């Protein structure tokens, strides 16, 4: 028995030792710390991340198909207007929040000193606001009403703002951003303008003009909101983008960051330059930009665009039988290292030409029109067009106030291949005249005028989406119109 008690005693001691280490039971040291991540963001790295991905907005296939820059060569569904539900949500949690995070880190007293190691707090905030405005702009032009004022604040149940609120908000943001830039330390991570604040200011003023002009259907007159904003931006001392050197351009390094148009034909050949575009260029008496806008798969010059909006049974054999049809862009312009111009001097100059023609401003329509077209040619490395070109009946301007068709057509061409701008400009002006896809599967067969909200919107944000949809006359459909598209 004594031996047994002895054994039990040893055992009891063991248990006591174990129990006394109870505090140690809770302690796991750094076991749960991820060794390959930090909890302190580097704002310059966030900025580089946003800029590295921002070219996706200026190379959207869906919009370029709607405005007939491209045709589909083998699986025509978007260009035959198959139902297109999508959601802009990913951009909110992605790039937009990265920008918001830059603003937060440069604003919060606890982090702003660290953030300032990457450049002046104010300037980082200013750049982030401009880029936010750009992303919101291309989103709202697709869907219309979207979360804006209360978005990016951590609250998932955000009401949708009207497009009017969004536009006025963006324009106010740009105005304020320009005003608050300072001469502080140079910005790091700016792979677009290398920290050149003067150029960022010009970009902000240019975007403000382009946004204001987009509201020309809802605010047509020279005394309305749109014209007022346009004039104010034009009058800003920092100026706007007037030469291609000031374009908001990304020069891709290639390798793991390639120009998005390179990817278009990397293993697929789903798209071609549309016949709409080649016909239009021909109707201007020939346009040297065709040598840039498209060439054959083999790299030969061609003016054979791909018929637009035709069913697979037609278009697939057509492409087989017409190997000289045009790919989007000549190969030299879609190399892995090709630059991608997102906001361009040509667009800004032509916007000013239109504003002048509308009587919003007192600038010279003709002079801006000419320099806008020249800038577009120069942007592609082409010589300025000849007087013959400017004399063509479809190019030459008429009496003041009657030139929307010519100017809008040149705007359309200047935006190529940036579909979101081309499609929006067409929706706003109606020029050039586009016919719906002959084999469209929608009913009625009309060119879509907006994106429908996505399944995830209905799934995650049902109440807010329902309220937004209730405001759309015609409902959440592709042929309903956004606010500025009256």
């Amino acid at each position, binding site marked *: 028995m004594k031996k*047994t008690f002895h*054994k*039990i005693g040893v*055992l009891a001691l063991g248990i006591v030792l*174990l129990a006394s280490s109870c505090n140690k039971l809770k302690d*796991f040291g750094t*076991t*749960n710390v*991820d060794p*390959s*991540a*930090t*909890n*302190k*963001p*580097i704002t310059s*790295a*966030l900025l*580089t*991340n946003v800029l*590295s991905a921002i070219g996706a907005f200026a190379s959207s296939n869906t919009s370029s198909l709607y405005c007939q820059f491209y045709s589909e060569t083998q699986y025509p*569904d978007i260009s035959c207007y*198959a*139902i297109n*539900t*999508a959601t802009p*949500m990913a*951009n*909110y*949690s*992605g790039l937009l929040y990265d920008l*918001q*995070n830059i603003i937060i880190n440069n604003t919060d007293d606890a982090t702003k000193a660290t953030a300032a190691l990457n450049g002046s707090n104010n300037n980082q905030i200013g750049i982030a606001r401009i880029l936010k405005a750009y992303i919101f702009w291309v989103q709202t032009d697709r869907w219309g009403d979207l*979360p804006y004022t209360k*978005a*990016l*604040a*951590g*609250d*998932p*149940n*955000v009401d949708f703002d009207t497009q009017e609120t969004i536009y006025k908000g963006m324009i106010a943001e740009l105005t304020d951003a320009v005003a608050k830039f300072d001469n502080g330390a140079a910005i790091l*991570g700016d792979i677009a303008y290398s920290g050149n604040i003067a150029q960022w200011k010009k970009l902000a003023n240019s975007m403000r003009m382009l946004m204001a002009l987009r509201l020309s259907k809802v605010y047509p007159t020279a005394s309305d909101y749109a014209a007022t904003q346009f004039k104010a931006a034009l009058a800003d001392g920092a100026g706007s983008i007037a030469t291609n050197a000031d374009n908001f351009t990304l020069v891709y390094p290639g*390798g793991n*960051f390639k120009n998005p148009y390179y990817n278009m034909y*990397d*293993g*697929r*050949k789903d798209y071609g330059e549309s016949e709409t575009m080649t016909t239009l260029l021909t109707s201007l008496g020939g346009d040297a930009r065709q040598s840039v806008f498209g060439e054959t798969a083999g790299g030969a010059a061609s003016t054979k665009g791909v018929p637009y909006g035709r069913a697979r*049974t037609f278009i*697939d*054999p057509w492409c*087989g039988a017409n190997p000289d049809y045009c790919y989007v862009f000549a190969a030299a312009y879609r190399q892995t290292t090709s630059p991608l111009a997102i906001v361009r001097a040509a667009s800004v100059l032509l916007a000013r030409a239109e504003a002048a023609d509308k009587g919003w401003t007192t600038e010279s329509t003709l002079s801006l029109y000419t320099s806008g077209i020249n800038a577009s040619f120069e942007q592609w490395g082409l010589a300025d067009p000849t007087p013959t070109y400017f004399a063509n009946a479809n190019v030459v301007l008429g009496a003041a106030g009657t030139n929307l068709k010519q100017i809008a057509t040149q705007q359309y061409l200047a935006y190529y291949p940036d579909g979101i701008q081309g499609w929006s400009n067409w929706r706003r002006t109606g020029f050039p005249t586009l016919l719906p896809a002959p084999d469209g599967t929608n*009913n009625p067969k009309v060119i879509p005028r907006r994106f429908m909200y996505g*399944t*995830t919107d209905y*799934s*995650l*944000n*049902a109440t807010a989406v329902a309220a937004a949809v209730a405001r759309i006359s015609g409902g959440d459909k592709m042929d309903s119109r956004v606010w500025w598209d009256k």
Partner: protein
Amino acid sequence: MRKISLLLVFLGFLGLQVVFAQTRTVTGTVSSSDDGTSIPGVSVVVKGSTLGTITDMDGKFNLKVPQNAKVLVISFVGMKTTEVALGGPSNYSIKLETEKTELQEVVVTSGYGIKRAPKGSTALSQVVNNDKLTAVRQTNVNNALAGKVSGIQFQGQSAAALGRTGNIRLRGDGGFSTGNGVLYVVDGTILPNSNDINMDDVEDVSVLSGPSASAILGAQGANGAIIITTKKGKAASGNNGKVNIELNSGLLASKVYIVPNYQNDYAGGNNSQLTRYTYKSTDPVEWKTLDGKYYPNYSDDSSWGPRMVGQEYIPWYSWYAGTKYTGTTAKLVPQPNNARDFFNTGSTYNNSVAFSKATDDFNIRISLGNIAVKGLLPTTSLNKTTFGLKTSYKIAKGLTLAANVNFFTTQTNGDFNDGYSNQSTGSFNQWFHRDLDMGIMRELQNLRTPDGIYASWNHNDPTSYDPKNTKPFYAGNYWYNFYTYQNLSKSPSNTDRLFGDVSFNYQIIDCLSAKITYRRQQNVGWSEQKFSTDLNDSGTQTTGNEPRNKGYYYSGETYSNRENLESLLSFSKTFGSFKVNANAGTDFFQSIYKGNSEQTVNGFNIKNLYSVFNSKDQPLITNTRQAEKYKAAFVRADAGYKDFLFLDVTLRNDWFSTLPPANNSIMSKSFGGSFVFSDLLKLPWLSFGKIRGAWGEVPTPIGVFTYPGFAYGVNAYQWNGSFLMTTPDQLVDPNIRGAVKTQKEIGAELRFFNNKVGLTATYWDGSEKDIPYSVSISNYSGFTSKYLNTGLINKNGVDLALNIKPITMKNFTWDFNATAAILLKNQVEKIADGINQFVVQTIWSRNSVPVMVHTVGKEWGQLFGGGIKKDSITGLPLLDSKGNYISKPDTYFGSVLPKLTGGVQNTFTVLKDFTVMVNIDYQFGGKFFSLSDMWGTYSGLTAKTSGLNDKGNPIRDAVVNGGGVHVSGLDATTKKPVDYYIEGATWAQNPYNLGYYDEFVHSLTYIKLRELSIGYKLPVAKMGWSNFVSGINVSIFAQNPWLIYAKDRDFDPSEISAASGEAGQFPGVRSVGANIKINF
């Protein structure tokens, strides 16, 4: 040693045969104590020797025994083994009793090796023995369990995907993902999945259905556990210290069984007419003979081509030079079996040998096994070698040292991609030409053009031929020759898994023992992928969906190691009428995981040089390091009063490294009671009657590095020297805790008529609350998800098991076992404030294609997406003015969970030595979405895209000619009945273009004959072989021989690849095999 020499003799090696001196003869008769009939074939052995015989047809035996023989051992299957002392008489009359305790002999094993007789169990306790599990020799425990345990749903996988073991659901499902999965425990070691369990080593499997049974395992066992106990060296009666050898050798042949129902009327391409070919001077000279002949469209990968009526045409391969087919035509005839013919006949060789020996102080069992599989997909294979060692040794009085070592090494070749656009079923069922002759495809797999382009059935049309650049014509447009692709893409991998334990057990006093166990489960793996640049050269658009086709090399290595240090005190004592068993223990756990991978990006610089540094762009490197720990302490006890009234209780506390440090302690608990009333009632017809009830609650932890979250990594690539960072998308609640899973159950176990009829019924009710889940939130917040304690799932159901022995005759017995699990409810009650629904699985992300969601107030796992809009009053479909259905993008198609699952096992014993097993399992309810059906219909492959309309005309004929598909419904605006005929192709493509998918959502209901076997136990004694062998069993068997019922038979609903459906499913497979098992 003698056994081993006998084995050598048997195997044809030299050996010695020892002859004993025999000095006297005993005779006797063996009969049944039930009815007095004599029993032939009974084994009569002298205890402690191998001397023995079996009884003849009249139950008589005659045996010469040594003078010193003292005891005879009389044994027979289904009867109690009886020992007879050899005394004066030389003739014995021996009565054998039927083995009545058969059902009670099984022992339920729970965590930490704690065993318990099921008589006192308070929660449903199901044990499946080796003979039931391996009647048909399976290589995977999940397959072996299907239908045999109530409360299980087995989601199998096609046998074409080597190494995939499927997934088991116990009592419905939970969590806010696509499913929880169960825990697999082998001799106390937790395995990460059900791979690497040698089924020949398995003694039995205990199934713990939920927290009320598995609380001792803590959080890990919250979803239930499959507890596997392996065989150990056992001292057979009269056989102490002898070596037992078991050889098991089997062969299985597998063929494709279930493929979709294809149309066999129309050929490939998008042109319903053949096109006339006119020879041009720039065309290759060997095409001259084709001048004036007709060809179909090759470049389109759909089957909206010409009707196949045996007309002359130019097949795809005629355009390639250098074969006997070059420049020839063929007859355009249907190839109804082409998809099926692609696959090989698979083979599986399954061999194992086990040696075991046991004495009073020592036991050991060593097993070696090999499984060699040649896959159904060409070039695929799997080879698994297993080693098992289980031993224990009493090194001193009361002190036992035991060790378990298992080693598995598996080599696999093959990619087994069954996703969208995979180069087998991804083509056959979605984008394909129905006229392709697979025999010629196989024959021409190495055919290349002089430029090195591999020939493809999906090359371009001859109008695109350019003599200066032949690739656009000869290369595959979207697809390769399927065999070529298999040859040019290789994915070898290797996994080495080592697991087991070492333990000391010390019997402190009679009623108390202590055990210390060190346990380890370690995996080392590597995998490679090699894609030839020939794929890039042989395809025009094939790199778009699969960038690896540019040329690709991947190399990845992983190391993981899980270690436990466990202590266990066990106490067992009887106090008067009370019997108490109690345990207390601790479990300290740590795991580490290291993973590195390197892969080329965007092709190679040098063709076919498989090196990471040969990457065209900067290679992608991944580097993962994870560590996790927990510490646990637990106590459990059960007490029985007079062996009819039982109580048990379990408490376990865990501290987890992954939980917030201030709050990282969680407690699991369970208790229950049971009452065996039959012992009190003593009714003659009631053999056993028990009611029981149990309750359990198990909190769970959260994943590694989840808390505190919001950590910024650095992106893999830099932009000209500027590094990139992305803001994390998940918010983490600082007070994050584990979910709490609770289950209660009440049940009854009844057996009647001398155990001939047995019924077990359990009602269970469970909840999962405060589920910590990364709830998708509207990204408008700036984040994609919020990790928080939220959510409530309630579920309940009934588990039933019925066992009947309808016939127990001398020469024929029938054992019938049926299980049924009724899932009454498995409802998502709450997700989070303001969140009604979120998406958990997406098969196709566009055009409102159904996704899997969890929705408040609905059954777990809804399919949600575009459906046909119906009139709210009449329920009729609404049509637009062109006769098209209208999409309702927020349609619920139902839950992915079946409502009723189970199986039926029949065992027939004929003439005592023949055993026939017929194992059926079934499932009712539940839905899945078929992407293959959608694209297969879109591209004119499925049977429904052919045939006649109600006018008797082909639906593919133009509507103006009386063709088209008849559609009726209500006009969406006027609500008046309307009728239309829609062009066949438009009708087939409308669902995707317009967003309604009702017809592609299918039922998971099935009834399936999963296993069939006929076994024969050779009468080795009668054959005079008993000196060599103690038993030989041969069997022939079939796996998946017959899908008895499925609502539609395009896919085997028991093998759907993803929780919500399939995107390019492999075919169902049927196998037949033979096996021989020899015991020495």
